[in-house]
């Protein structure tokens, strides 16, 4: 499915450019760069990943053969900070990753943008299940139980600062407060999970099917800060 999608024009996920490489072109590129050629399964195209801002080349890129470096690249921003949300728009530049197969491509993308390929495929196939925020909060236990008491207003107020498309997360929010209560319009709630400069048909959107545990942690902080009995901070 992923190989077919790339063959049909998908070339972008988040900040990463995906390129399908014909075997012959690939071997020539490796030769030009002085890279020892590796075995390419002729039945599969190989793939190249890089930061979208490096797609035009222009400066030295560290070359990684295979998906092994993906987790390290995804874990730290340029300034060394820990990217615990992988859809933050601060993926480091300066690297290119060469992948032998669609399986390695999926493995690498699942490190850069965890589960996002699968979420997208499920959405396309009609099997993606969205979980609304109230349901998520209701099932919290232990010290997190107190998040259940937050009002809709308090929850709505948490979305823009916690899920802003600028910082930290660029996923498209699919969930609502509950089935009948959509999120209020904001930059966070209107992000479509696709970079502005890319056509929707050419990108794998970053989807958020359920509030993450970072959001729940923010709910807990708000619940602790709220005045008793008000449901509001």
């Amino acid at each position, binding site marked *: 499915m992923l190989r077919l999608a790339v063959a049909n024009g998908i070339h972008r996920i988040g900040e990463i450019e995906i390129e399908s490489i014909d075997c012959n072109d690939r071997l020539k590129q490796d030769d030009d760069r002085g890279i020892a050629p590796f075995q390419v399964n002729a039945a599969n195209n190989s793939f190249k990943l890089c930061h979208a801002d490096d797609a035009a080349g222009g400066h030295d890129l560290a070359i990684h053969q295979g998906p092994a470096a993906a987790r390290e690249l995804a874990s730290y921003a340029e300034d060394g900070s820990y990217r615990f949300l*992988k859809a933050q728009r601060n993926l480091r530049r300066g690297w290119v990753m060469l992948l032998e197969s669609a399986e390695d491509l999926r493995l690498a993308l699942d490190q850069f943008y*965890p*589960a996002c390929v699968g979420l997208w495929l499920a959405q396309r196939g009609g*099997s993606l299940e969205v979980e609304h925020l109230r349901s998520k909060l209701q099932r919290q236990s232990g010290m997190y139980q107190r998040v259940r008491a937050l009002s809709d207003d308090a929850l709505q107020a948490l979305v823009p600062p916690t899920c802003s498309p600028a910082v930290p997360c660029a996923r498209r929010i699919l969930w609502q407060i509950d089935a009948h209560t959509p999120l209020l319009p904001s930059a966070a709630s209107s992000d479509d999970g696709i970079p502005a400069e890319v056509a929707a048909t050419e990108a794998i959107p970053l989807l958020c*099917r*359920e509030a993450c545990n970072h959001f729940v*942690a923010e709910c807990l902080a708000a619940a602790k800060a709220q005045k008793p009995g008000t449901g509001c901070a």
Partner: protein
Amino acid sequence: MPIAPKPNSALLIVGHGSTQNPDSSTPYFEHADEIRSRGLFAEVHCCFWKEEPSLREAFYLIDSDEVYVVPDFISEGYFTQDVIPRELQLSGPTTVIRGKTFHYCLPVGVHPSMTDLILRRAKQVAPHADPAATTLIITGHGTGFNQNSTKAIRDQVALIAASNAGYAAVLDAFMEEQPFIADWDKLSPTPNVVVVPFFISDGLHSFQDIPVLLGIEAEIGPAASQREVFRHNPHPLRGKSLFYSSAIGTERLIADVILDQVHDFDITYKH
């Protein structure tokens, strides 16, 4: 125990993860890499409580129709008994969810083969210390909320004490319940003391909190991966030689324990 290849099954390794410490999830990915390299499963994935992918997202990682879920946790407790089943929507040892069959295995830390890993780690960290003059302390968090969280450690202490490992004393000690790890020198009757943290990762507790409780460091330091120099053993402290190891979960052979739990699941529920 070697397991037969399962080319139509997925393995899902569940970890805690952290939004603060980048080292927290490293062992889980290393265990997954190790098992993936052996080609035993069609797919090997990780999912986390505190990191991405979340437990609920894990369903979308997996193509296979049969999934073995192994909690890469050190003990039975709140996470393995409440959180993981709730988040993965598991109702028993085997649960069918939207056409996929999930098998829920026991956590790695309760498997008997952990004993050998602890002894191996203790020997690595203090290769020249005579066991007869050495106390081995297995340390964990400890909490009054769930006795199971300390049971795995106490079970290992009993197993090692009854073995022929030869340590003068084998003790359990905890961060937040008695006996306290901060009293390691008073608890230990020998000149040498080896402390093995019974955690999966070198995260907040094993590399930041416990070193302060032991007296190795005066205050909580940065994450393990952000240190230029790891701790040097032995530490001459409080009149004794203290040997402090990294968390037991960082041992690459934990991958074998994960496979042991899959094997044991099959023996218990599929035969």
